[in-house]
């Protein structure tokens, strides 16, 4: 009965063991395989082949040390269990990962062996390796993304600090002028909180309608190919003062080329403008002083210019008073005729005085559309007396018509008077028939040119190079201020003045000014320039 029970029990265990997926084995204390369950077949071994082999010979060399250590521990105490992972070679010579549970039953009389339950974890290991690799990749990816994010954050920070901390104003706005973004500098400059500015138009801050129109005009023509505009205008500051600002606009378009917004970068140029204005005023004052001193030099000649009409007037009056004393028939008619001529001369004298006053007035520059031919003719009245005294002939070779220029007629006249006088002085030593100053004019749609030519003794290369520097002069009594001021006047008008030696003799001074094409304001300009005369 006991035997039967035992047999039954053995059969049950054998069945369990022999059908188990795990390999169950018995090994001796020195590692010889005493039994191997049929599951070893999955590694290509026949259970009978396995028996008698040493486990050490099957172990991966790298694992021997570790497994030996575990075995020693196992043998130290009966009934001990250890769990160990190792690799063994299968029949095909491939390494397989095993997870084994070793149970020391050497002392058990029925067993007298170490029971090994080993489970193949090769695929698990592989999966784990794959998983690790995947994890690593993910980790790397995450790392990378974090770095990228960090970089973005940093760059954004940098950008933000650039935008926020810099002194230039940045504003983005919709085509109707509504602000969508402003930086701190912008808020500070206009003395308003960001919330007050966003969603509102900036146009009301611009001082004058003309500048508002300019902004609209300049920005409305921007294209993806040509998205930049630049301009300056005055703006109202929160304290009621007026500031000058300079702006560089960029139009922002979407991929289809539709206008989205404008981005404007601006700066405060008030101080610069003020300096410029002060400098301009100083230039103007200097030009005025030079004009007055020029007139001082010419006053003797101008005295004669006034003397001439007075001479004519006094002579007609003498004749009239004498004829009235006589019994000449028709004397009244004669006197009437003469009075008309006297009136002409009074007007002429008045004109000369007015021109003198105009020429020496200290008003700020008054630019307008002018015809340079007319300015040349007016300047002739100022120089005529001086030229006559010097026995210099003035010849005009003016273009039949010239485009207008935008200039201060008095200052341009000053330049002409200066250059004509210089030309006359350069010919002091010439024989009288050669003392000729020629003023010619010419122009196209871009430039108007006036040339003053003399037949004098000319200038050396060095002198030509020096011309226009203050205090440079070839005249013993001159100061050289005239030419320097003339050059600056022309340059301030956006033009250029230069001397050139003539092929035959003498020097030609030429200046050019930008032509101003006729516009709707031309009639007003002409009216004003007539008035100045």
């Amino acid at each position: 009965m006991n035997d039967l029970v035992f047999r039954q029990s053995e059969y049950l265990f054998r069945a369990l063991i022999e059908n188990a997926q795990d390999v169950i084995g018995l090994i001796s204390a020195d590692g010889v395989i005493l039994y191997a369950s049929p599951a070893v077949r999955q590694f290509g071994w026949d259970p009978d082949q396995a028996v008698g082999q040493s486990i050490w010979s099957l172990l991966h060399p790298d694992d021997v040390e570790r497994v030996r250590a575990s075995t020693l521990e196992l043998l130290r105490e009966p009934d001990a269990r250890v769990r160990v992972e190792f690799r063994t070679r299968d029949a095909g010579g491939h390494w397989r990962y095993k997870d084994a549970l070793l149970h020391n039953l050497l002392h058990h009389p029925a067993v007298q062996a170490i029971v090994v339950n080993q489970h193949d974890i090769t695929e698990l290991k592989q999966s784990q390796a794959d998983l690790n690799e995947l994890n690593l990749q993910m980790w790397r990816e995450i790392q990378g993304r974090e770095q990228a994010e960090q970089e973005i954050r940093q760059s954004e920070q940098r950008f933000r600090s650039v935008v926020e901390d810099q002194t230039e104003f940045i504003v983005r706005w919709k085509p109707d002028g509504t602000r969508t973004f402003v930086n701190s500098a912008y808020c500070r400059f206009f003395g308003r909180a960001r919330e007050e500015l966003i969603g509102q138009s900036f146009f009301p801050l611009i001082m004058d309608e003309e500048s508002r129109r300019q902004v609209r005009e300049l920005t409305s023509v921007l294209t993806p190919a040509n998205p930049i505009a630049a301009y300056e205008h005055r703006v109202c500051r929160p304290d009621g003062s007026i500031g000058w600002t300079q702006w560089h606009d960029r139009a922002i378009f979407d991929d289809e080329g539709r206008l989205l917004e404008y981005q404007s970068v601006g700066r405060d140029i008030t101080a610069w403008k003020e300096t410029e204005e002060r400098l301009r005023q100083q230039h103007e004052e200097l030009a005025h002083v030079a004009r007055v001193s020029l007139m001082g030099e010419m006053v003797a000649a101008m005295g004669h210019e006034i003397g001439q009409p007075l001479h004519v007037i006094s002579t007609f009056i003498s004749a009239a008073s004498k004829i009235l004393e006589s019994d000449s028939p028709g004397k009244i008619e004669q006197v009437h005729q003469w009075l008309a001529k006297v009136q002409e001369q009074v007007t002429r004298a008045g004109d000369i005085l007015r021109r003198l006053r105009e020429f020496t007035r200290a008003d700020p520059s008054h630019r307008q559309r002018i015809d340079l031919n007319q300015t040349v003719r007016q300047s002739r009245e100022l120089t005529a007396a001086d030229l006559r005294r010097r026995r210099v002939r003035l010849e005009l070779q003016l273009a039949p018509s010239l485009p207008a220029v935008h200039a201060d007629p008095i200052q341009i006249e000053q330049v002409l008077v200066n250059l004509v006088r210089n030309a006359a002085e350069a010919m002091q030593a010439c024989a009288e028939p050669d003392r000729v100053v020629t003023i010619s004019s010419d122009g196209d749609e871009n430039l108007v040119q006036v040339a003053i030519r003399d037949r004098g003794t000319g200038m050396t290369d060095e002198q030509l190079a020096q011309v226009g520097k203050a205090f440079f002069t070839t005249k013993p009594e001159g100061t050289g201020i005239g030419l320097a001021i003339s050059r600056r006047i022309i340059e301030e008008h956006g033009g250029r003045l230069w001397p050139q030696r003539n092929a035959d003799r003498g020097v030609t001074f030429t200046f050019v000014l930008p032509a101003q094409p006729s516009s709707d304001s031309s009639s007003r300009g002409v009216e004003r320039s007539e008035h100045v005369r």
Partner: protein
Amino acid sequence: MFADAIVYIVDDEPAALEAVAALVGVMGLAAKTYRSAEEFLAAYDGHRPGCLVTDVRMLGMSGIELQEQLARQGITLAVVVLTAYPETQTTVRAIKGGAVTLLEKPCRDQELWDAIRAALAHDLEQSRREKRLREIRRRLETLTPAEMLVLERIVAGDSNKAMARHLDVSVRTIEVRRQRIFQKLASESVAELVRMVLEAQPNRPAP
């Protein structure tokens, strides 16, 4: 008084020419106007009496140069120079006195009128003197060399006897020559004869 006088006006400005011409017209005188000194010099035929009214400022030849040019050509026409440059007054005076009147423009009341009258009076007298001088010279030229020698001695104050001795001829011969000299020069006294010779030869050393 100046019935046949002509006032020559030179000025480059038409209005000035017209005004002076008007004044001259009221004076009852003829006026001729020129726009330049050259134009006047080319046209002037030596007519007397007359006067030149001009301006120093003129282009080309100045009034002063015109006056100098006239002197070179032996034209002694009276000149009224109008000027706006007082500084040239002294220059003008240094160059030439006498026939030149200098007026500063504009002239004061009557000044130009008076100056033209004075210039014409001067010119009239001057032209008369010149005419007389020309007559004396013409007459002197009719004398023979022998008569010339006798005239020299008369002017020197020699007696007939001294002359005869000096010239180694008879007293009678001297007397005949003296008579012819008085006839040819239409003179009635020795004093007049001496005056005429001195007038005709102003540079002659005093006897």
